[in-house]
């Protein structure tokens, strides 16, 4: 994956260079052709021709950039040669020498697999955190219009406090005050249900499922059932649109999924079994079950709290942008507060809110790199650890930037696709 991204970067760089130089040459040729073909009186003198000035300015800029780049690259090579740093990407296949908690990775695994493992941890934080922040922010944004004084003031207080402190401070505060010192240590972990629920400042663990015989087939059947459930839901929506009969799509979809899953489970002879978290002799959860490391929980909670304030402000602004008549009409139809927001206000507000929300999602993903301060093993932290394993810094920083660029691009593409769906289709 990393090699692929590097290849893409190289191609993009070459493509851009070809485009820029090509455009420049084309412009120069076009200018001289125009000057040659037009009459003597119509052309300005060369040094007063706007196009010529533009071309000269661009040539100067291009040579300045190339010159500065060559100079800096020369310095860079001299310095890296002096300290014996190789500027190749061979190190990606060397053993990383680090382990990641709750990850099957071993110290002998390659650098690239360690980075990819960290990147997936980043994606996990984002996939949990962004929906949670959206939910919190929307609720708080609505709460600021509540007719209830306490709710309104609390929402305002929350937004005005957390919006104005740095996300890093929120993260370290949540980690040290709530998670590290607020929760019991691993030895005195809170286990109200024995090994069914374990909470300490080290890990949170509950039982999970573990694959047995036929698990591969079962997984594929479940995936098929999920797709079928989606199709059934879509069909019910169509029925509702066409006939007005109650759609009950959620019920239908669930029934489909659970029915197929149950039959497959029985037919395949119990392809999954329960796996309880295993404790080592110091009382720490170390394998099996569903485990969450507390630094990740703290990171996600803190970022949700911080990003929630920004989303709340966006939601508040976009609700104010919905025409007041809409709310009054909803009230005149005697819709409840929930119905008013669910069917009248929010669908219209979301259209206004979505573009700024995308940039908040991007901020969320970029802020997840602050995990480096509390030791959650995501991309930035892994790469920082690799510096400590005397892996080459320049290449690693390039990869770090590239991964976040890819992530930003991915998120904004998804966001823009959703945004296009949300907007009113014009004529």
């Amino acid at each position, binding site marked *: 994956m990393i090699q692929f991204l590097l290849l893409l970067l190289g191609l993009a760089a070459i493509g*851009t260079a070809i485009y820029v130089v090509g455009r*420049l040459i084309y412009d120069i040729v076009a200018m001289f052709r125009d000057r040659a073909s037009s009459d003597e009186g119509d052309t300005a003198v060369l040094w007063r021709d706007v196009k010529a000035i533009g071309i000269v*300015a661009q040539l100067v800029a291009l040579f300045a950039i190339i010159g500065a780049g060559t100079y800096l690259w020369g310095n860079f090579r001299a310095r890296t040669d002096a300290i014996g740093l190789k500027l190749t990407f061979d190190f990606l296949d060397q053993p990383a020498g680090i382990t990641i908690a709750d990850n099957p990775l071993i110290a002998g695994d390659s650098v690239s697999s360690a980075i990819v493992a960290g990147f997936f941890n980043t994606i996990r934080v984002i996939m949990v955190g962004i929906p949670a922040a959206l939910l919190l922010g929307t609720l708080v944004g609505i709460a600021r219009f*509540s007719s209830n*004084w*306490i709710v309104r003031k609390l929402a305002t207080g929350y937004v005005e406090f957390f919006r104005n402190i740095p996300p890093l*401070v929120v993260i*370290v505060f949540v980690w040290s005050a709530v998670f590290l010192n607020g929760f019991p240590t691993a030895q005195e972990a809170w286990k109200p249900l024995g090994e069914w629920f374990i909470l300490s400042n080290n890990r949170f663990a509950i039982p999970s499922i573990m694959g047995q015989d036929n698990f591969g087939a079962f997984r594929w059947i479940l995936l098929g059932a999920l797709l079928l459930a989606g199709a059934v839901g879509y069909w019910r929506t169509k029925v509702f649109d066409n006939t007005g009969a109650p759609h009950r799509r959620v019920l239908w979809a669930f029934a489909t999924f659970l029915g197929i899953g149950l039959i497959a489970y029985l037919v395949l002879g119990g392809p999954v079994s329960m796996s309880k978290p295993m404790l080592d002799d110091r009382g720490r959860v170390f394998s099996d079950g569903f485990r969450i490391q507390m630094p990740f929980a703290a990171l996600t909670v803190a970022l949700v709290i911080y990003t929630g304030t920004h989303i709340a402000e966006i939601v508040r602004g976009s609700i104010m942008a919905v025409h007041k008549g809409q709310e009054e009409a909803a009230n005149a139809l005697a819709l409840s507060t929930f119905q008013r927001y669910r069917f009248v206000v929010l669908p219209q507000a979301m259209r206004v809110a979505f573009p700024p929300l995308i940039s908040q999602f991007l901020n969320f993903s970029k802020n997840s790199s*602050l995990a480096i301060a509390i030791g959650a093993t995501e991309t930035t932290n892994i790469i920082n650890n690799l*510096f400590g394993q005397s892996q080459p810094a320049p290449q690693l920083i390039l990869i770090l930037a590239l991964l976040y660029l890819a992530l930003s691009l991915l998120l904004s593409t998804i966001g823009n696709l959703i945004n296009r769906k949300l907007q009113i289709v014009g004529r």
Partner: protein
Amino acid sequence: MAGKDAMYLGDDITAALATDSSPPSTKLSPADWAKKNLFSSGVNSLLTIVVGLAALALLWFGLNWVISADFEIIRANLRIFMIGQFPKEELWRPWTSAYVLILGAGLTTGALARNSHELDLSQEIESHKEGWGSMLRRFWPVLLVSIFFVSFARTLLPFIGLAGAFALIVVAREIGWRMPAAIRERAIFIGVALFIVSMLVIAGTSRLGGYALGLVAFLWMMSELSRVDSLPKGFAGTLIRSGIALVVAAMVAIIQNLIPHDGFGWENWGGLHISLFTAVVGISLGMPFGILLALGRKSDLPVLKTASVIFIEFVRGVPLISLLLFSNLMLPLFLPIDFERPADLTLAIIVITGFSAAYIAEIVRGGLQAVPKGQTEAAQASGMSAASVQRLIVLPQALRAVIPAMVGQFIALFKDTSLLSIIGILEFLRVSDTSNSQQAFVGKGLASVTYLFVAIGYWAFAYTMSKESRRLEAKLGVGHR
């Protein structure tokens, strides 16, 4: 209206007209207010009780925690929190610096307020001098938190110092308000010059200080000379003006260097001071680059456009921490081989300048798009050159429209300076880590106390500025046109 029987339709109106023409009071009795705002319906009552109890529990828990917490760690480290590892016998430097800074801020804001007041009066807009009550409402978080900070001091000196600072800002603002118009017009230059002088009080005279002061002198001279009508117009005039301004700037820089005064460069600074300083420097240095990048992105010259777009999108697409790691690990590698490695903060400021330039570029681009196309066309029609159109017509309007967003960017940058702690610069947040590793406090679980203290510090500045940004937005009428 209780007595229904004796009254006829219109009686109350007649009575009201006879006695008082003001509208009926909208003030509710406490019971009515509570009914309206807290218990208007069953759901609302339930919400009030549940949320109210939760809030009370949180408050109770928080108060308990604050009362039982040990604030000795803050008392012992207050100086480090404010200005870092500064030698105790040199404390007069930060104090003098703060006073010079406050003097400059007071004079400049007073003068600018008066200027805007005079402008409003000349356009027959109603305008009053802003009272101190209103100022207090605008700046209470910073005032309150600075008192809160000083309350941890062990000696009397910081109390006296803070009281003096409050007195100075009042006096300086009044002087700024009363200054003659000729001086008031130059208030910005005075403010910037005093800002640099205040930094030089700590840092001592240095070549960098000379450059900074020289730059201010150059810009100031250019602005002065542009008022002189006897100089020739056009290219020759510009050449003469820049020549004179350059000579003056060089003289200022040389004089600055001649004054023997050594101090502590910013590699020795720290605490809240460095957080504020980095944010101010980052945004001021980022501004010119950001404007250039925005113009580059908007231009139709492919080389400039591509370079601007690549820079802006790259910087905005990666987290700041990766850029700071770059500054720490890679930036020194680009220097000539016989160069010494600069201080960490110098490297960080270079990167932060580029970082804020990219974000400012996007803000300015928004402003440029908000300027109606007719403005450019009208300017072109009157025969202005492309550079003059941008400089005299488009940019002033675009920049005015983005002032609130720029304040927002400043707040974001101020909050982002907390990331400097990760690359080991002793800024405000990092002091809480270092103080928790001191022998007297290590392993006592006091991190949350110091983090809360730091959070309140950040909050006071950021919240005040965000209120100011909203005020500016309302005042400039951005978004209402």
